[in-house]
């Protein structure tokens, strides 16, 4: 038997496969397709302090090997999450991680404090990288001082596992990663979507209501792997990698480049059973290569 277990700070994950925020709802929407307890972790839809309607339609454009989205963090706010959703999902046998979003540092802090009360949420993923909101969002993730300020403020009120989700829309992602590590982040996850744009040649209009949106899917995979590798070499905390992972081989490539765990996002839209196929595929890979513990794969790149 191969050992798929890994550790992200205080979290013992049964395997390195998680689902990415904004692509798996609250878990309930994909529960029909596979047994959620097989997942190493599930990162629920981005949550904000107050209800958000998100951006206007159209919010999606298909691109070669990927898609652009401009959902804009549509969610009913943290009170609704705690009152209505948390009781329904809290006993799922996997690590539930909430993706936290704010427009101001105070909002990030207030939201984190609310989530701190929930026993069955062992970690949060601080999203300082959403490209689809006007205030806050990515703005916090694209400069070291602002990223440091948010993480510092949140760290003061949060003692459980703090994962910080980084934006690829920067000159040096490794510098931002080092900056948030310096403020006490327990792990970094990357990448969020890449800022992109689609134009309709017939109408000469932008396809998305917001003009620009976030690119995800296989199209971003080489950039994501490059960034995981750079960040892995720059920090000591575990790196969670994502961006275009469609199968077990993709996942293993991320781990070789330095990811301790991976998240599956857009691939779920194509086939919601992909996480299970990836878990099984990693097991088979380890058996084939006579690898005992999945930890042996992490950062095993041979240059």
């Amino acid at each position: 038997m191969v050992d798929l277990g890994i550790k992200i700070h205080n979290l013992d994950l049964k395997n390195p496969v998680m689902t990415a925020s904004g692509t798996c709802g609250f878990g309930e929407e994909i529960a029909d397709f596979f047994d959620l307890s097989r997942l190493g972790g599930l990162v629920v839809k981005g949550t904000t302090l107050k209800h958000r309607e998100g951006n206007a339609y159209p919010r999606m454009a298909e691109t070669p090997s990927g898609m652009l989205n401009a959902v804009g963090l549509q969610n009913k706010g943290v009170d609704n999450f705690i009152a209505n959703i948390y009781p329904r999902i809290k006993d799922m046998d996997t690590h539930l991680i909430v993706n936290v979003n704010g427009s101001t540092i105070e909002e990030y802090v207030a939201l984190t404090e609310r989530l701190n009360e929930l026993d069955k949420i062992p970690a949060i993923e601080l999203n300082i990288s959403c490209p689809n909101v006007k205030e806050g969002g990515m703005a916090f993730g694209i400069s070291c001082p602002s990223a440091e300020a948010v993480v510092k403020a949140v760290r003061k009120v949060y003692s459980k596992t703090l994962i910080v989700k980084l934006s690829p829309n920067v000159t040096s992602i490794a510098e931002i990663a080092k900056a948030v590590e310096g403020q006490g982040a327990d792990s970094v996850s990357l990448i969020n979507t890449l800022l992109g744009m689609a134009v309709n040649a017939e109408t000469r209009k932008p396809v998305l209501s917001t003009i620009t949106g976030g690119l995800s899917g296989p199209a971003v995979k080489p950039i994501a792997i490059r960034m995981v590798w750079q960040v892995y070499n720059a920090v000591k905390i575990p790196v969670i990698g994502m961006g275009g992972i469609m199968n077990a081989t993709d996942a293993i490539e991320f781990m070789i480049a330095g990811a301790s765990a991976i998240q599956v996002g857009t691939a779920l839209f194509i086939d919601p059973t992909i996480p299970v196929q990836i878990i099984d595929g990693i097991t088979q890979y380890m058996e084939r290569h006579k690898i005992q513990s999945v930890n042996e794969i992490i950062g095993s790149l041979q240059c």
Partner: protein
Amino acid sequence: MKKTVIDFLLLNNKQLNKDNFLLVLQSPIPVSDIFPGQFINVEIKDATEIFLRRPFSVLDVDYEKQTISLLVKILGRGSRKLTEAKEGQKISAIFPLGKSFTLPDKNDRILLIGGGSGVAPMLFLSKICGLDPDNVTVLIGARSSSDHIDITAYQPYGNFFFTTEDGSLGEKGYVTNHTVFIDRLTQFSKIYTCGPDLMMKSIGRTAIGKSIFCEVSLENMMACGFGVCLCCVEDTKAGHKCVCTDGPVFNVNDLKW
């Protein structure tokens, strides 16, 4: 009803007219209950630049043969590729998705209006609504007679009327110009429609004006089809709703029409 990802077998692919094809897909396992308005999200394989699945309404189900029929109209790259699929080929689809039309009550007199590929759920509804065919009126619109598909198999389930924009079949004009729509609308207790947005808006507004129950099946660009991406929103009176899970069928009174 549990949603599943299934590799169907393409049993039959028949061209009905220039742009429309009838695809019969067979499931390797028994198919769960499916109702008119529900759809399946089909993977288009080996097509460069096509990344996401494509949604298609269910036209018919045969539970014994474990088949689902689709009416596919060529609109762009994906639908064209799908209509080129060969019999015996595997086609992956996620289903059953979305909410169906509210089935009529025993004493209802219903009007079903379909335009373009929107006829698929209307034909399915006429077949399974369980009403006396005299109480089922179906109005189908298209550009020209050559765009209409053969509905002989559905003829026993209701009274069928046609419109064409060039007058080559049925009354000339849009479905909303048809005598049934202009003169007889208040005879119906429920109106159901699926088709182009402008057609449904015009029907919906008329129904609201006359206080007739009316459900429409909306189209929308979908990435997942099962409620996780939140891309497919319609701005309703209750805020943004997902067309794939809160719909595609909506009551017109809930929309900002």
